[in-house]
């Protein structure tokens, strides 16, 4: 199963995309439960504060709710990550990134030598 990681924000506001292939078993046993847990862990009702899991393919055209990552705090210029595991997406802030996600991001970066394209995601 393909996992695609899109990093936006940061001082430069540059968007980078990396991807890797994992087995269906790994995705279902490790990453999908983790993605669901991110949403369940966060009791906040404020979309700006919460991580969100959304199913792509359906109408995800409303940007405000779709990607507001965690980090409605005093952090500025931090990265924001969108991780798509098959049809499931999780949005995470760099300042709230658990170790397994860091490992996944490192693997994806290593698996994508000529990182790019730099096209900003979801530009309408």
């Amino acid at each position, binding site marked *: 199963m393909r996992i695609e990681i899109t990093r936006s924000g940061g001082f430069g506001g540059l968007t980078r995309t990396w991807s890797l292939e994992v087995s269906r078993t790994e995705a279902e046993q490790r990453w999908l439960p983790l993605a669901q847990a991110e949403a369940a862990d966060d009791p906040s009702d404020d979309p700006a504060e919460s991580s969100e899991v959304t199913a792509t393919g359906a109408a995800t055209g409303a940007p*405000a709710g*779709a990607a507001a990552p965690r980090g409605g705090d005093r952090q500025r210029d931090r990265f924001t990550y969108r991780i798509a595991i098959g049809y499931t997406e999780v949005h995470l802030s760099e300042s709230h990134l658990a170790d397994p996600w860091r490992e996944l991001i490192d693997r994806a970066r290593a698996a994508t030598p000529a990182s790019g394209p730099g096209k900003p995601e979801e*530009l309408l």
Partner: protein
Amino acid sequence: MQRIHCSIIPPHLLTRLAAVRDARLSVASEAARHALLELEPVLQSREAALARPVRQGSAVMGTLTRRVSDAGGREELPGTLVRREGGPPTGDAAADEAYDGLGATYRLFSEEYGRSSVDGAGRPLDATVHYGANYDNAFWDGERMVFGDGDGEVFGRFTASLTVISHELTHGFTQYSTNLEYQGQSGALNESLSDVFGVLVEQRELCQDAAAASWLVGAGIFTAAVEGTALRSLAAPGTAYDDDVLGRDPQPATMADYVVTASDNGGVHINSGIPNHAFYLAATAIGGRAWEGAGRIWYDAVLNGSVPPDCDFPAFARATHESAEKRFGPGSPEAGAVVDAWTQVGVLP
């Protein structure tokens, strides 16, 4: 206007002196009792000033206090203190650039606008360099600025450009003044203030007037492999880089090209191009030293209370127009330049 006196003798000593009944110390004792009477309202007003979450002016004049730490390549803060205020250069480029950059930023706010540090009350300026391994970013964490060394392929070290350091420190200034929410248009204004005062710090250090300045943010932090001069351009948003790997600078210059996106907190680093360009147009129309004309107007707007945390572009435009009229007079060329600038970028009709 409220005046706050600074007493060099601590209150507990004054109290002891005031209580002395020895005739040989009667003059000192009387003076101490008098000083304590004066001190009471001072302490009260200082307490009130410190209790306010947002300070509109400088309450207590402080001095420049810098502390630069080294994270040693780990993602842990604050790291080891390597240079404190007045200490000798470390010989490490990143640590010394951060130290000098904090000083330059402090001087702009202090010497031009009379503000003591980011909070107006002399808060020490903390920075950490060598954060993380191949770390491609610089950020403000709510208390300190943090700089990575870059990956060596796209980015070199982030302290190499003064505008990066002044940009991060200005996030501190914004946090303690308007505290603009970091989402959508208010977030783009937050970013724009950091770019605006970021370039003004550099222009002032280089003694450049508006016509001579580069108006670039982050020049010199790309490696030679990247097709680009900087991360952002206030003079021509959207033209700072155009590279095979990074793509093209996505910043719009006008509302016609406003980018609606879910990434980057609603495009805070993208749509900041619009208020950035408005500042550039106002500053070049006014001419001369940008930190004295347009910079002063923007600073006034932020400090005069008319920029709420959820401010949008039109409300910010009106706030700058008002502060231009207040400082330079209604119908002044400066006020006209500000309105023209916001009109050209499509924020005002």
